[in-house]
Each structure stands twice: as C-alpha cells, then as structure tokens.
C-alpha cells in the first residue's frame, strides 16, 4: 500500500491553504467587508427620504439578506479569481485526489469567510438602522438562519462559481445562475429572520418550518453539488 494521505488530511491541507492565502492577501475579506459597507450606505440613501421609520424593523430582515446575497456573490467570484490567475486549480487537479475533497475544502473556506463578514456586517447594520429601536427578546434567533444560509450559499455557490470561473463574462453569469438557485433558501430565511426581529406571536409557527426548509435545502443542494462537482472540474 502507498502512504497516501487520508481524505481528511487532504481536506485539511487544502482548507488551510485557502485560509493561509487569505491571511496573506486579505483579498476576499477586504473586498467583501467593504462591499457590504457600501451596500449599507446605499440602503441609507435609498431609505433617507422615506417615512417608513416605524417599519424598518419589519423590512430589516429582507435588507440584511439583500446585503448578504450581493456580498456573497462578490466573494464567490473572488474565491476563484486567485485560483484562475495563478492556475492554482489546475495545479490542484494534477494531484491524484478525490474531486469531492476539493469541493468540500473550497466550500468550507468560503463558509468561513462568509461567516466572518456576517459577524462584521450584521452589527454594522444594527448600528446604522436599528440602534434607535427597542430590541425583542427573540433577536438571538437570527443566528441560526445566518448559519443555514451561509452553508447553502457556500455549498451551491462553490459549484456554480467553479462553473462560471472558466466562462466569458463570469461575474454576471454567476449572478444569473446563483440568484434563482438560491431563491428558496432566501425566501425561507427572510421570513425566519423577519419574525425573529419583530418578535411576533406567530414566531414559532413561521420560524420553525422556515428553518426546517432551509436545512432541507442545504442538505439537498450540498449533496447534489458534492456529487456533481467531479463533472465540473474534469480537465
């Protein structure tokens, strides 16, 4: 038998490689962080003339997700830019390892970056838009949807970003493919987040099924992407 490293070891090496690369360049975190800040500025301008101040709590769930979807779109595009520029992915493909390990490593690193940006951007959103309003006791319930969506976005986004990274007009194409595919997840968590922020009586009747569907979407899409990834990176 050869002394080939185990799949877990391969995963760890690829995952740490992405983290180390990011800690050197800070390419993704800087661009995603700044981009989410800019989206917040645009929200500020877009809402400045409206008199819906009392409704901001109602729409904040949707606004947070609008910000995070666009930010993650940018991040997913960036995550393969480096691999393409230095032919990094081609190098990885020369190694005799299971394609699904590459997928899982890339998904994990994208998930980590997305979570870091969310930890920075969501308090900023609160600071800019919600600081004047009393908080509901159920606010902590926004955390599980954040995690489930990040998982789904990283999961299916990594597959789609791999597809589009080798095409013409890749940035636009990723948006065209990614947004409709992510729609069910978005719909589910916007309602979960909204009821958590509002703290309405129907909390459990909406929140629990929404979260269950988000989890179901994650399971379906990640296993499908994991199975199909090999077809996307051949050669």
């Amino acid at each position, binding site marked *: 038998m050869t002394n080939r490293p185990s799949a877990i070891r391969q995963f760890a090496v690829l995952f740490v490689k992405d983290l180390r690369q990011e800690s050197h360049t800070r390419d993704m975190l800087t661009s995603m962080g700044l981009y989410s800040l800019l989206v917040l500025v645009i929200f500020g301008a877009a809402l400045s003339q409206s008199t819906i101040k009392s409704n901001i709590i109602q729409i904040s769930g949707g606004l947070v997700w609008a910000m995070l979807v666009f930010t993650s779109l940018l991040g997913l595009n960036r995550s393969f830019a480096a691999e393409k520029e230095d032919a990094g992915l081609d190098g990885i493909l020369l190694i005799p390892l299971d394609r699904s390990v590459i997928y899982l490593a890339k998904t994990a690193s994208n998930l980590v970056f997305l979570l870091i940006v969310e930890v920075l951007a969501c308090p900023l959103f609160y600071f800019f838009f919600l600081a004047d309003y009393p908080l509901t006791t159920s606010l902590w319930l926004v955390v599980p949807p954040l995690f489930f969506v990040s998982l789904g976005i990283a999961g299916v986004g990594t597959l789609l970003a791999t*597809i589009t990274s080798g095409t013409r007009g890749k940035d636009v194409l990723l948006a065209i493919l990614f947004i*409709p595919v992510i*729609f*069910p997840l978005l719909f589910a968590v916007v309602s979960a987040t909204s009821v958590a922020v509002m703290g309405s009586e129907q909390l459990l009747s909406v929140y629990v099924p929404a979260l269950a569907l988000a989890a179901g979407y994650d399971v379906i*899409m990640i296993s499908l992407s994991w199975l199909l990834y090999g077809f996307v990176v051949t050669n």
Partner: protein
Amino acid sequence: MYKKTATSLMERLALPLLAIGALLTTGGFIMAFTTAPLVLGAGVPTPALIGDQMVANKLLFSQKIFYFHVPVALVSFIALGFTAIYGLLFLTRHDPAFDLRAKVATEIAMVFILMTMASGEMWTRYEWGVWWTWEPRLTTYFILLLLTIGYFVLRAAVEDPERRARYAAVFGIIAFVDAPVSLLVTRLVPTSIHPVVFRSDSGLPAPMLLPFLLALFGMCMVAFGLYHFRLREQVLHQRIDALKSQLED
C-alpha cells in the same frame, strides 16, 4: 459526429402526434367553452379547481383559462424533467446527442413556461386586478423562467462544446431540483405580508374533467411533436455544418 440514424419510431410518430395533439387541444378548448359549466364561486362542489385560488362568489368565466393554463404548466415541468434526465445521461454516457436533447427539451420548457406566464397574467389581471403580485405560485414560476434563462446564458458563455455540455447538464439537474424546492418553500412559509389561502379538496365533475384531460394529453402530444421537429432541425443543422467544413477542406 452525428451519423445518419434510421428513422426511429419516435420520429415517425412526431408528425401524427402533433396533429392529434392539435386536434385534442382544440377539442378540449371548444368543450371548455361549450359543455363545461361555469364555476360558481363557492356554490360549485369543487371550488379548488379554479386554476390557482381566490374564488369569488360569482360566475367565473375567466376560469376557462384553467383548461389552457394548467396543461401548459404541467408540460413545462415535464419538459424540465427531461432536461435533467438527458443531462444525467450525458454525464454518465458522454454522448453529445444527449446534450442536444437536453438543450431542445429546455427550449420546449421555456416556450411552455412563457405560455403559462402569459395566460396566468390574464387571470391575475381580471381576477386579482393586478398585473403582478409576489404570490407564491407566481414567484416560483418566475424563478423557473429565470432558471431556464440562466441555462441558455450559461450555454452561450462556454465555447468548448464538451465543457458546455457538462456545465449545462450539471446546471439543468440543479435547476430541476430547485424548482420543486422553491414551490414547497413559498407554500409552507407564508410571509406576514402575504397570507396564502389554498384549498386542498379536489375532484372534478365529468363535464369539466373531460375537456381538461383532452387539453392535457393534447398538450403533451404537441410538446412531444415540437420537441422532435426541433431536434431533427438541430441534427440536420449540425450535419450541414459538418458538410460545409468538409467542403472547405
């Protein structure tokens, strides 16, 4: 690449099926307007069958849309299913013929999705009084349209035919799985803004069931016929291209 294959049974069936389908759908529509009773809001034994929902307490002439709208919508789902099946076949067998079939199936799906949306608009306008609303059915169907558009944009963006086929197959499968999920999600998670009223009782009186089934089977045959004619056209097109490039050499 594309050898001249013997005319298969399917191809010979295409023209007759298209003709029968056209006759059946026409017959179904005529019956829908003549023999099928008008739906009486809540008075009718089976109010759930009004295309989507929101039955008013009046004679719903606009419900006639149901005999066109629902068969067309069902066919669009079936066609999208074939996109996924042929995509899967391509990924396992690596035969470019499957890629072509997946592409043509998606084209058919797109045509039927557009027809569903166009007929749905009439209903929305006359029964709900708006051109568009973010109602769960409408929203998910719109997502379906965006997914098929994405499929063709993806195809156009990849030059290498082998890679294009692989990417399109993968996306076709993802899109087909995504469609029912998004249908499920919007129905199970009503938002606070849109209370959703769905009725689940079913069962159609015979004078309504017959034209509906005629239109449904007719529409399936029309789709099948269109699919085969488009496929044949595409195969011939590729053969001409191959001949042209041979002549140039």
